[in-house]
C-alpha cells in the first residue's frame, strides 16, 4: 500500500500513462462484452419486446423529427445511392471514352455498383441515419437516467434498448438495400443513356450480360453484416454516453467516425474473402 503510494507520487506521469493504457484496454473489453450481450439477447428481445421492435422498425424506416420531414431514411438512402450511381456513370463514361470504349459503361455499372458502390454507400447512409439516430436517442436516455430507471424496474436494458435496435436495423436494411441497388442502376442508366446519349440497347446489352446474380446475393449479405456492425457500434456509444448534452453530441460524432472506419474495413474484408484473387468473373463468358 505505502510502497504503491510512494511510487505514484514519485512518478505521476508514468502512473497516469499506465492508467490511461489500462483504461483503453478495459474499454475494448467492455465494448466486446456489450456486443456479446447484445447479440446474445436478440432472441429474448424478439420474443418479449415485439411492440417495441415494431415501433423501432417504423421509426427507423421513416425517420424521426426533422429527418421525417424530408422523407426519412428511405429517401436519404435512395438519394445517396442515386448520386453515387450517377457519379459512377459520369466518371466511367468519360474515362472509358478517353480510351474509346465508352460502350462498356453498362458493364462498369453492373460490376462496380454491385460489388463496391452500393454496399459502401448503403453502409455510410445507414451509419448517418439510423445509426446516429440510435446513438442520439440512447445517449439522451442515459443522460436523463432513463436507462437506470429501466434497470430499477427490472427490465433488461441491453435487451430492451440495444438488441431490439440491432434486430430492427437488420429488418429495415433488407428493403432499404433493394432501393439502394435499384437506385444505383437507375441513376447509372439514366445518366449514361439520357444525358450522354448512349444507345439504350448498347447499355442494356453490356449491363445484363455482366450482371451476376451471385454477386447481388453477396452484396445483400454484405449490407446485412454492415447493418449489424453499425447498429452494434452506435448503440454502444449511445449506451455509454457521459457528460451532459455536450457528451451526447460528442458520442454521436465518435460513433459515426468509428462505424465509418469499421464499415469500410468490413466491405473490404468481405469482398476480398468472397471474390478472391481471381475475381470470380469471366469477361469472355
Amino acid at each position: 500500500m505505502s510502497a504503491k503510494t510512494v511510487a505514484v507520487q514519485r512518478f505521476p506521469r508514468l502512473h497516469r500513462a499506465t492508467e490511461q493504457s489500462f483504461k483503453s484496454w478495459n474499454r475494448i473489453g467492455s465494448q466486446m462484452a456489450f456486443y456479446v450481450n447484445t447479440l446474445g439477447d436478440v432472441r429474448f428481445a424478439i420474443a418479449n419486446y415485439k411492440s417495441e421492435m415494431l415501433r423501432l422498425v417504423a421509426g427507423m424506416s421513416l425517420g424521426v423529427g426533422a429527418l421525417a420531414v424530408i422523407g426519412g431514411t428511405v429517401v436519404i438512402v435512395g438519394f445517396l445511392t442515386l448520386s453515387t450511381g450517377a457519379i459512377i456513370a459520369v466518371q466511367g463514361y468519360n474515362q472509358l471514352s478517353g480510351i474509346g470504349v465508352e460502350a462498356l459503361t453498362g458493364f462498369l455499372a453492373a460490376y462496380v455498383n454491385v460489388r463496391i458502390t452500393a454496399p459502401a454507400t448503403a453502409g455510410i447512409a445507414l451509419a448517418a441515419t439510423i445509426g446516429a439516430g440510435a446513438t442520439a436517442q440512447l445517449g439522451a436516455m442515459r443522460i436523463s437516467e432513463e436507462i437506470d430507471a429501466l434497470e430499477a424496474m427490472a427490465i433488461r436494458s441491453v435487451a430492451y434498448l440495444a438488441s431490439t435496435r440491432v434486430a430492427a436495423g437488420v429488418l429495415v436494411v433488407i428493403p432499404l438495400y433493394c432501393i439502394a441497388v435499384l437506385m444505383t442502376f437507375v441513376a447509372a442508366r439514366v445518366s449514361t443513356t439520357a444525358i450522354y446519349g448512349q444507345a439504350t440497347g448498347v447499355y442494356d446489352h453490356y449491363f445484363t450480360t455482366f450482371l451476376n446474380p451471385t454477386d447481388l446475393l453477396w452484396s445483400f449479405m454484405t449490407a446485412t453484416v454492415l447493418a449489424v456492425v453499425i447498429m452494434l457500434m452506435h448503440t454502444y456509444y449511445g449506451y455509454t454516453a457521459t457528460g451532459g448534452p455536450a457528451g451526447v453530441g460528442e458520442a454521436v460524432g465518435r460513433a459515426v467516425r468509428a462505424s465509418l472506419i469499421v464499415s469500410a474495413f468490413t466491405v473490404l474484408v468481405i469482398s476480398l474473402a468472397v471474390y478472391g484473387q481471381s475475381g470470380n468473373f469471366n469477361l469472355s463468358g
Partner: protein
Amino acid sequence: MTGLASAIRPFRAIGDFFAMSLDTFVLMFKPPFAWREFLAQSWFVARVSIVPTLMLTIPFTVLIVFTLNILLIEFGAADFSGTGAATAAVTQVGPVVTVLVIAGAGATAMCADLGARSIREELDAMRVLGINPLHSLVVPRVLAATCVSTALVSVVSIVGLAGSFFFSVFVQHVTPGAFAGGLTLLTGSSDVILGLVKGALFGMSAALIACYKGMSVGGGAQGVGNAVNETVVYSFMALFVINIIATAIFYVGPK
C-alpha cells in the same frame, strides 16, 4: 394555423441557413479576424480527421484497386493498373473520403461543440457582451474547415496512391515501373486541381451546415444528439450533390 406553421418550417430553416451563410461571407472580410480561434479550429479539425482519413483511405483504395486489377488482369492489361489507381485515388476516392471525413468527423465534432455552447447559453452570453458569434465563432470555423479539407484531399490522394502501389505490386504482382509509368496516362494536373476545389467546397459547406445546426439547437441532450445526426445526414447529402455537379461541370466545361 399550427398546421401551416409546421408546413412552412422546413422552408424557414432553409431561409435561415442561407441568411446565416450570407452573413458569414460578409463578416469574413470585416476586421478584426479571429486568428487565434482560426488556428485553434484548424488544429481541432485536423486532429479529429487525420486518423479517420487514413483509416478510410486505405480500405477504399485497396478495394477499388483490387476490383480494377481483377478486371485489368482479365483484359491482359495489368500494366495499366497504375492508370486505374491514379484515376480512382485522385478523382474518386480523394473527394469521397474527404466528404466522409469532413462530414462524419469534422462537422459532427463542430456541431457537438457549438450545440453544447448554445445549450449552456454561452452564445446568448456572447451576444449580451456585444460579440457577434457569427463573427467570432462561425467565420473562423468555416475558414478552418475549408483549409483543412483542401489539405486532406492531398493527404488522401497521396496515401491512396501509396496504398494502391503497395497492394498492386506486392499482392497482385504488377510491375512497379509500369505502375508508376501509367499513373499520369489519364489523370492530369487538371484532375488534381478539381480535387482540391472540391475539397474546399466540401469543407466550407459542411462547416456551414454544422454551425447552423449547432447554433439552432434546442431541447437538451436529445436536441444536441439530433442536431449532430441531422448535420451528418444533411452534409452527406449536400456533399454528394456538390461532388456530382463539380464532376459533371469539369467534364462538360473543357469540351
